[in-house]
């Protein structure tokens, strides 16, 4: 790849770093707000999940935190060998979690059935049972 091509995104990269990515105390405070509010929200939402679904919950949150893929992709895509290779491994790991996590959560949730929906069992339950 010609050096000109790989240089110009670097310049852009530098610009974003200075424009946005550099951590100032202001952006840290903003990030802390997001963190604390997400924590409160998470507490509210997750404490409503019944023990019945705790295993799917764990695999679902696992898949969701695979969003670190977003960070890994950028690093793997920057044109620096060492960082790219580290990023590549990170992308593979995070993708495994995203794909595997969501697929397995779906698979588990499909198994949870209410009594009425299972045909052969609804016959069996007609014997004076609730």
């Amino acid at each position, binding site marked *: 790849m010609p050096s000109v091509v790989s240089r110009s*995104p670097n310049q*852009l*990269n*530098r610009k974003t770093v*200075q424009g*946005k*990515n*550099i951590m100032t105390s202001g*952006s*840290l405070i903003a990030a802390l707000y997001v963190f604390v509010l*997400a*924590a409160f*929200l*998470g507490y509210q939402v997750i404490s*409503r*999940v019944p*023990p*019945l*679904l*705790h*295993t*799917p*919950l764990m695999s*679902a*949150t*696992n898949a969701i*935190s695979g*969003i*670190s893929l*977003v*960070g890994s*992709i*950028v690093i*793997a*895509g*920057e044109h620096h060998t*060492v*960082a*790219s*290779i*580290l*990023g*590549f491994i*990170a*992308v*593979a*790991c*995070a*993708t495994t979690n*995203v794909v*595997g*996590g969501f*697929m*397995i959560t779906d698979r*588990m949730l499909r*198994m949870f059935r*209410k009594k009425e929906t299972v045909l052969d069992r609804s016959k*069996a339950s007609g*014997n004076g*049972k609730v």
Partner: protein
Amino acid sequence: MDYTQYFIEFTYLAASILFILGLKGLSHPETAKRGMHLAEFGMLMAIIGTLLSREIVSYEWIVAGLVIGGALGGAMAYWVPMTAMPQRTALSHAFGAFAAALVGIAEYYNYTHNIKPVGDLTHLKMGAMGFEVMLGALTTTGSLMAFAKLQGMVRGTPLTYRGQNIFNMALLATTVGLFVYLIFVPTAGVAFYVMLALAFLFGILLVLPIGAADMPVVMSLLNSYAGLAAAATGFVLSNNVLIIAGTLDGFSGFILSILMCRAMNRSMTNVLFGAFGSAAAQAASDGQEGAMREVSLEDVAVQLAYANQVIFVPGYGMATAQAQHIVRELADILEKRGVSVKYAIHPVAGRMPGHMNVLLAEANVPYSSLYELEQINPDFPSTDVAVVIGANDVVNPDARDNPKSPIAGMPILEVDRARSVVVLKRGKGKGFSGLENPLFYKPVTGMLYGDAKDSLTKLVQAVQHV
């Protein structure tokens, strides 16, 4: 910001909202599937948005990673049996944490090798990055250790040695010390990589002394760490969706680990550093009076067939024997005879939160038949037969009656209040914690020895002939 940048930020915002809605859906089995589809869609949006990012100059590594990860994840999701769910979850904690750690390492490498201006490596940024790498590294090896224990590659019993806690504490203190030093001197590369190595080591040593029966707590805790490591990545990259998703994961794990500790009436410190189930537990197992009463298969079959209400109490033994399908078969036959069948699920039964529920759901047991501890305990006195399948500590009456017992105060399923109890047990040995279980010596209790799946298969036949 140009329009692409706006679009990317928009996908992140949408993803954050969809993740929260997705988790909200998990509050009920009916809405859970739709919720997960929302979360999946959110993830897809965020990934597409990121791929448009102009910081990306080449796609080879990205595509390679996506393909390999997708294939690996898909294969795992497709072939892993439900009984191996704890192992798979432990492995995915390791993957998630490792990804977070690698991002941190790559960023640090970029700053210290003049790829990104070293001046941007502020103290604050170093703090977030150090936290991310430290937590990510120790969660990676800790989860791999948990995986090895669950898979049976490493003995499940706690591994202890003299001065273990002191050594671990010293190791942790050194790691944190290096972390603090790095915040003040961000360019100290040696300190960074030594901290990384120590954190990897600490993860292994942290899980080594924890017994397999305590795995539900450890799993939840590692879940929490993996999430927090992802959140720290968000701080490093100033990316809000990462912070939100990581925090949700972190808090979910945190809440679960508190619930699990409460279900065992133990503190987090005790679980982590108590090495429960090793030598200490033997002290309390005083000599039991009386003998265990063995019952015959035919007797149990008759008891079950003429019962009004039967409660099954599954434990990890059901998972190892893969007996969930045959349990449901037995339940079907009993229900056809007019017996009311319920399942009592203890929060820490099995090796991860909700383990038993998933296994029984896999065997087609409707979730309306699964009862939690508080719901089912009042039912035991009016129950004719309680069938304990490979559960031990969660039905140990010592927890309620003997204040000196190591598990005193742990809420239990009060099967001993049932009119009769049948315990399916592999052998006469003690349970995982090494504790004597007085339930087995009670007059109401009959022991049915043998592999749970085997015994249940025979029971199914015997009940049909009653």
